[in-house]
């Protein structure tokens, strides 16, 4: 395992989504890369993400959504963060975040407009996510 890098992540699978495998692997990989990880598991509400971020003083919220309802589930998360005093917190989303095979440029645009800092397509590897986190959080 790498040295701890002092950065804290809250991760989880949003909404009514029960896909449990990917998030477990992300947790493992993020820890290996030196992050402190709070893994909320599956079926996480926006409120739970925010509560955990406040509680742990998180630097980023990493939202996973596999089952297709990501667009409905993620709406308003940025506003709620702002209201809760998490202005500017890094927001990632990834997985299979919309229903069906859609042009990813469109999808990315819609999620950017919803306030996510980065949007990842299906099949993103943990390594790619870690590279972005390191860059955005000024690690390494």
């Amino acid at each position: 395992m790498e040295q701890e890098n002092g950065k804290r992540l809250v991760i989880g699978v949003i909404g009514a989504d029960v896909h449990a495998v990917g998030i477990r692997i992300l947790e493992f990989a993020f820890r290996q890369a030196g992050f402190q990880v709070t893994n909320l598991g599956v079926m996480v509400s926006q409120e739970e993400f925010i509560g955990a971020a406040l509680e742990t003083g998180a630097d980023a919220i990493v939202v996973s959504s596999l089952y297709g309802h990501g667009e409905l589930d993620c709406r308003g998360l940025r506003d709620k963060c702002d209201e809760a005093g998490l202005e500017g917190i890094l927001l990632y989303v990834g997985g299979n975040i919309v229903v069906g095979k859609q042009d990813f440029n469109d999808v990315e645009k819609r999620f950017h407009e919803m306030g996510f800092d980065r949007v990842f397509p299906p099949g993103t590897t943990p390594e790619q996510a870690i590279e972005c986190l390191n860059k955005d959080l000024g690690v390494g």
Partner: protein
Amino acid sequence: MDQLKNKKWTRDQLESVRKEVLTQWPTGKDVDLEEAFAYHQQLPRHKIFSEKLNKAHEQGKTLVQPRAGVPLIQDMIHLLTYLQDVGEADLLPTTIDSYTRQNRYQEAEMGITESARTQKAMLNGFPAVNHGVSGCRQLIDALDTPLQVRHGTPDARLLTEIAYAGGYTSYEGGGISYNIPYAKNVPLETTLRDWQYVDRLTGLYEEAGCPINREPYGPLTGTLVPPFVSHSVAIIESILAAEQGVKNITVGYGQCGNLVQDVAAIQVLQSLTDEYLRKFGYGDVKVTTVLHQWMGGFPQEESKAYAVISWGSAVAALAHATKVIVKTPHEAVGVPTQEANAAGMLCTRQIINMLGEQSLNTYSLKDEKVIIASETRCVLDRCLELGKDDMAQGAILAIRSGVLDIPFAPSRYNAGKMLPARDNDGAIRLFHTGNIPLTPELIDFHREKMEERAKYENRQASFQMVIDDVYAISKGRLVGRPKV
């Protein structure tokens, strides 16, 4: 409430719960059992799921069934007609959306409205409760193929009422298989009870001369599930269903990837389910089998996805499973288009037809069958012991203690102490046995298999090995070898 027992509900028991269930959403009030029986009785035989399954079973044929669900009724009719006519489906599905699965009918309603407005599917399936009895019947009437509800709903009572009254003749799910892989916080006792309701309702239809096929959900988390684990769940759920009066059961299994293990698994699943049902006094239940093509992570590349689809089809054909559930070349990316869905089916059909007349009869097949059957017996017999001969109680205690343990499950009621990994030939074995009550010989067998692989790969068996196996098929192989 009384302690849960594996005992047939009385009509009064059922009715007292029904009253409440049917008010959970406005469409519940349209359910009228007598009228529903009448609707079922006038269905032509070719629309009845069990009829088609039992005929295929007799002829040793393998039927092809896709998954599919979109939010709006007209789109759904269009989609299913396409899969029936172009995809040549033998059996049709109705995949339910994830809000309905969580009884969040309000959100489902929003999804319907949004989908109608944006002309884009905003739900990942068909919200049958919101569309109600008449909505379902529009599908049944429009199609010439038997339909099944496929979902993943821990509390499916209202959905069942509406689906059955709506004319569906087959229904997937069970108290364990639709809880542990599909929920986080629902106690097992609750879902087992709610599925007794579903099964008793199914029994009522059977008693009224309306056959409804029930399918315990075989693949569970779809991720490195050893055959004996899913077999144990399938047999427990079959016993519980049979007690409530279910007469037609399809037990399922998700392809593991090793030919011998997979063919052995399907064949043992059929014989062992038959055996246990007979043993418990349910010898009149008709049992058929379903193979699910690879249920774990798929490769993104479509031509590779076709390879995975074909290999699953080959297993179904060589094992002579009664039906096969088909994946699509879009699997890794998202809910498939109708064209991608039909493509998966035609590919499957080609393999089934080329291989359906061939059989596998290998030296190792018999060994593997003995192994899977012994493992399953270890678990089932301990369940009964734990439950003092009651399978319902046994199941609860077995899951709690990890006697029955489902890998990668989201439910906090699952022990998660057992860890599976592949052996050197790609068969799924146990890397940590956890609390699974295997005999010492079986434990040795698993240990040796894992040691053989570890030696070959020149590394210790570890969680990294399991992760490598989770990724393997999506990265183009079966065994997750270390990078060199």
